[in-house]
């Protein structure tokens, strides 16, 4: 009697481990990615990544993607202090290199999109701004990103390229704050990403910056070293670089890497 029970138990255990092994080995199967995936992404990626996340979750019903959108520099600092991110998508190479220098990435960062800078103004461009030179005007209320955040660094570069000195009224700590201030009518103009102008829709208008002085922001993405869900993170990164992901990014105005 006892021997029979023992044999049953052993075979049951063997069967279970076989099943478990077979499930774990198959990494390419779409049904196997599960659990929470935490993505820290630059503020300028808010709309695009939310869409990508939704598409990703349709593909992988067992996975849940949550986002933390903020300035890339702030996110890099948070990850450096141990924030539990699976994926980091930055608006500049600088913030990403802070992580790679500290050995905090598990994979080599991959540039998945680029973004051009653009001047954002109120709908209908009431102040008649035609280029960065107009921003020099003392009467103009201009807000920029703080130089510590990526879009601020890009803006500073652009202004230097154009040989223009602008005294902004405020240095915001993320690009969305610049957009908000212009949309609310508190500021006349700001320098943001082209994607931000598109995202603002009818609430804002844009003035192109000529390619000669413009800077192309490069967006790298990587899986973090301490990622709690390494598999899910990698799947997400792959999805972003995939055709589907790229198409979604393009629809928001991002350019190919």
């Amino acid at each position, binding site marked *: 009697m006892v021997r029979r029970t023992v044999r049953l138990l052993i075979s049951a255990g063997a069967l279970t481990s076989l099943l478990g092994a077979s499930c774990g080995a198959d990494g390419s199967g779409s049904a196997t990615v599960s659990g929470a995936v935490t993505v820290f992404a630059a503020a300028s990626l808010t709309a695009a990544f939310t869409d990508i996340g939704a598409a990703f979750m349709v593909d992988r019903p067992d996975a849940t993607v949550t986002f933390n959108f903020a300035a890339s520099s702030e996110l890099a*600092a948070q990850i450096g202090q141990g924030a539990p991110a699976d994926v980091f998508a930055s608006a500049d190479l600088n913030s990403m290199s802070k992580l790679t220098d500290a050995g905090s990435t598990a994979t080599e960062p991959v540039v998945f999109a680029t973004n051009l800078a653009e001047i954002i103004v109120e709908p209908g461009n009431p102040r008649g701004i035609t280029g960065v030179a107009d921003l020099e005007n003392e009467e103009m*209320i201009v*807000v920029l990103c703080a130089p510590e955040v990526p879009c601020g660094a890009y803006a500073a570069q652009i202004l230097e390229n154009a040989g223009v000195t602008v005294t902004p009224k*405020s*240095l915001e*700590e993320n690009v969305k704050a610049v957009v908000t201030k212009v949309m609310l009518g*508190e500021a006349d103009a700001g320098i943001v990403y082209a994607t931000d102008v598109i995202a603002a829709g009818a609430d804002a208008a844009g003035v192109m910056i000529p390619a000669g002085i413009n800077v192309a922001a490069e967006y790298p993405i990587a899986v973090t070293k301490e990622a709690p869900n390494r598999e899910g993170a990698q799947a997400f990164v792959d999805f972003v670089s995939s055709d589907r992901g790229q198409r979604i990014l393009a629809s928001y105005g991002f350019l190919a890497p």
Partner: protein
Amino acid sequence: MSPSRHRQRKPRTRRRGTGLPVPVLALAVVAVAFFALPLIGLLWRAPWSNAWRYLTDDDALTALRLSMICSLWATGLSIVFGVPLAWLLARVEFPGRGVVRALCTLSMVLPPVVGGVALFFALGRRGIVGQYLDRWFGVTLPFTTAGVVVAQTFVAMPFLVITVEASIRQLDSRFEDASRTLGASRWYTFRRVTVPAIRPALAAGAVLAWARALGEFGATITFAGNFPGTTQTMPLAVYLALETNPEAAIVLALVLIAISFAVLVGLRDRWFGRTDQPLVTVAT
């Protein structure tokens, strides 16, 4: 002969205890640790060798000076407008008094950023009142130091109002009667009888308001913006420094803490009133 069945109680040594039951004392100690640990953490990680360099950095000194000036202005405005408001809420019965009180102290529970956005819609360039300020007087508040003061006052005043209102309620109004029968006008009575009586509460409220104003971040950055020298107060400087230069951030944070500490400890006995003397005594 059997030994005595009574268990002799060991004589207790006469010791001055705290008078607190042990569980209560334990909780209190945990609370102290809760507040002390973050400070200890900062002191631990502070880059003492580079501290002086960060402290004397131009931007840091500017931010510090701006913080002090704005917070003191905000405290002053809180006193000038807050004390009459506290008086009104405490003494005058009018319909809707409860609603008015809730309205005036709303910013205490509002997330500061929400407060900043609300200030935009009221006093910004396109705001309800702000647009007229801009059009008629050319006065703009966003992106100015005055805007910082407005944002700080908005979040800090309720602390003063609540403290002072409670104190006024407690006052014996008969002293004001006595003053008036002696020939004092309402204003003279307020000046020489009421205000001295609420002085400890006023001081406590002012310090609370000042501390709140000094630490204000969300409403300031949303409404007034962030620009070194004009609107970049210490909390904003610390926040931004944290992204690029955490060491500098720690040093700046410690400066803020040291100042607040000094004020709280220094003022405690002098202004908050001695605990052995009641606020208002009646000679009998």
